[in-house]
């Protein structure tokens, strides 16, 4: 039996009996992914496009109800562009750049998230999580039609696993009863209450924040501006905070801080919620409730994201508060990081030690997300009178003096992680090169003659970018072929982001579009050494 844990919004992969269930000995799969949420499906798509056979096991047969994650960051869209489905998401999503912060009824300040031109993708789109997942699954279906070796099994629940020398033995339950399979690698993308983590008896330490928040997603015809609006101490939620955010389909995300000691049953009552909403948007505006939820949050992380042949990605590995949109966006950076490493190791192009760098780099990224998200939570939910004192002082000062603006913390929105200090980076060898394209950085996008830079980077493999250098079409390093992209640049945005004061530059680009090394000109020996370093050699 596989009990439903939640309602599904779209049924995308109904249960079907497969040959593995009748096999006399367990079938072996190169990669088994537990959980078909955005992180699991993103990983399956990435691996499938690279030709790595992978099997997704999901204990439901579709996408869960409720908008849940709604803010998808530029970096996530760039990853989805690489995976082939960024455009569909942007078409469906609501683009926003402007945020306003209010105290009481007065606007304290506003900010533009992307004051900089020259990026294909906006800073953020708002899109309900079910649509985001649907785009990923549709792209998997399109890739499957072209022969990508991805399989999704709905209503297949993980009920046991055992690490062996060269594989993981997995027990799976289905509507037709249990069966066993083997995985060379297992990736747990099964969420904050990860059954994989529980089955392995692994810890998930962190801080719980003593506060409750109510989400009310409502549908209404009224036209509020496409902005993120955040209130401290609004008249409709005195002494607390509130948030208003637009989603596609005329749906709006409203978020009310409730405090710690609440009567949960009373607060989730639809009539009570409707009166809260009416107080916020105005009594004359018609609306309907689409989805409501009361949540508390914690910031937690596993100690290790790799346990031999088992990897943890997304919320199963780390959990953050929702402020800053660092949950799903962080998870997508996990799979961006893991997919190419698994593919190279499975293809025999890199040593197993490359997989250790997944933990190294993504734990670093998760720590950054947890740090930012905890700081926001501390600002929004002061824990003692001294915290209240300073929070109120900041909010007062901001109305008098500009210096206090950056101290107001209503969410530090997700930005891509730069893997400073990663063992895969080569020493920065470009004198006076721009900070933002130093080794470890995700490539900054830039306009080029025929569009945008990131669209021209070879997908799914290491490549070389040369600016004002004549590179061959390919560079052969032993058995690995690096495609080269040669561009000219002078005093333009590309130069500002990639050359700085240098006349020319050569970059080694990882399959996840992070920069592994940079030099003023092509030096094949240095490139070869950097490639070895970036693939886990020394």
């Amino acid at each position, binding site marked *: 039996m596989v009990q439903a844990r939640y309602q599904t919004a779209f049924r995308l992969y109904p249960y079907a009996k497969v040959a593995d269930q009748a096999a006399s000995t367990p079938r072996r799969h190169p990669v088994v992914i537990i959980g078909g949420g955005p992180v699991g499906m993103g990983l399956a798509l990435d691996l499938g496009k690279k030709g790595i056979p992978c099997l997704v096991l999901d204990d439901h047969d579709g996408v869960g109800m409720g908008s849940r994650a709604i803010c998808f960051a530029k970096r996530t869209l760039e990853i989805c562009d690489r995976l082939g489905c960024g455009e569909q998401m942007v078409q469906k999503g609501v683009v926003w750049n402007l945020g306003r912060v209010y105290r009481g009824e007065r606007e304290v300040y506003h900010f533009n998230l992307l004051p900089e031109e020259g990026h294909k993708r906006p800073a953020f789109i708002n899109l309900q999580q079910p649509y985001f997942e649907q785009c990923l699954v549709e792209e998997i279906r399109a890739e499957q039609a072209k022969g990508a070796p991805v399989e999704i099994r709905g209503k297949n629940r993980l009920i046991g696993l055992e690490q062996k020398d060269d594989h993981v033995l997995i027990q799976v339950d289905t509507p037709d009863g249990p069966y066993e399979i083997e995985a060379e690698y297992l990736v747990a993308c099964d969420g904050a209450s990860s059954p994989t983590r529980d089955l392995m008896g692994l810890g998930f330490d962190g801080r719980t924040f003593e506060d409750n928040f109510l989400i009310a997603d409502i549908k209404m015809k009224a036209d509020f501006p496409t902005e993120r609006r955040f209130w401290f101490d609004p008249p409709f939620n005195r002494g607390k905070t509130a948030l208003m955010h637009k989603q596609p389909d005329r749906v709006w995300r409203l978020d009310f801080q409730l405090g710690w000691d609440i009567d949960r049953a009373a607060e989730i009552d639809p009539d009570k919620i409707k009166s809260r909403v009416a107080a916020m948007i105005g009594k004359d505006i018609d609306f309907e409730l689409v989805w409501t939820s009361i949540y508390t949050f914690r910031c937690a992380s596993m100690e290790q994201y790799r346990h031999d042949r088992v990897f943890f990605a997304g919320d199963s590995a780390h959990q953050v508060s929702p402020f800053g949109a660092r949950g799903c966006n962080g998870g997508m950076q996990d799979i961006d990081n893991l997919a190419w490493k698994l593919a190279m190791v499975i293809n025999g192009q890199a040593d197993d030690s490359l997989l250790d760098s997944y933990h190294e780099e993504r734990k670093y990224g998760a720590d950054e997300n947890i740090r930012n998200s905890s700081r926001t939570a501390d600002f929004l939910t002061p824990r003692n009178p001294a915290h209240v004192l300073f929070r109120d*002082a900041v909010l007062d000062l901001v109305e008098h003096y500009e210096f206090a603006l950056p101290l107001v913390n209503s969410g530090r929105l997700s930005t891509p992680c730069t893997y400073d200090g990663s063992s895969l980076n080569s020493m920065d060898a470009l004198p006076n090169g721009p900070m933002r394209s130093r080794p470890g950085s995700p490539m900054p996008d830039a306009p080029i003659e025929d569009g945008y830079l990131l669209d021209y980077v070879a997908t799914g493999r290491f490549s070389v970018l040369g600016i004002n250098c004549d590179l061959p079409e390919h560079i052969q390093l032993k058995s690995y072929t690096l495609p080269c992209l040669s561009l000219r640049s002078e005093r333009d945005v590309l130069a500002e982001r990639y050359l700085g004061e240098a006349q020319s530059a050569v970059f080694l680009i990882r399959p996840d579009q992070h920069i592994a090394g940079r030099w003023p000109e092509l030096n094949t020996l240095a490139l070869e050494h950097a490639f070895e370093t970036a693939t886990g050699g020394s």
Partner: protein
Amino acid sequence: MSKLNLSPNLEDTDGFYEGLLNAHNGLKDADIHALNARLILILANHIGEQDILEEALSAASAALKRD
């Protein structure tokens, strides 16, 4: 190496101290705290350098401990 200046540095020591006391005269407890919080934030912004501010926080905490 310490960057925080813990040697006498005020241009007008007694004048500053007098002003500090005057600013607090007649305030209720809650306002005393509120004033000091604002003052700390204003001065911290002026200093700006994170390592100096961290040293100042440590120095203040250390001076709070009594034997």
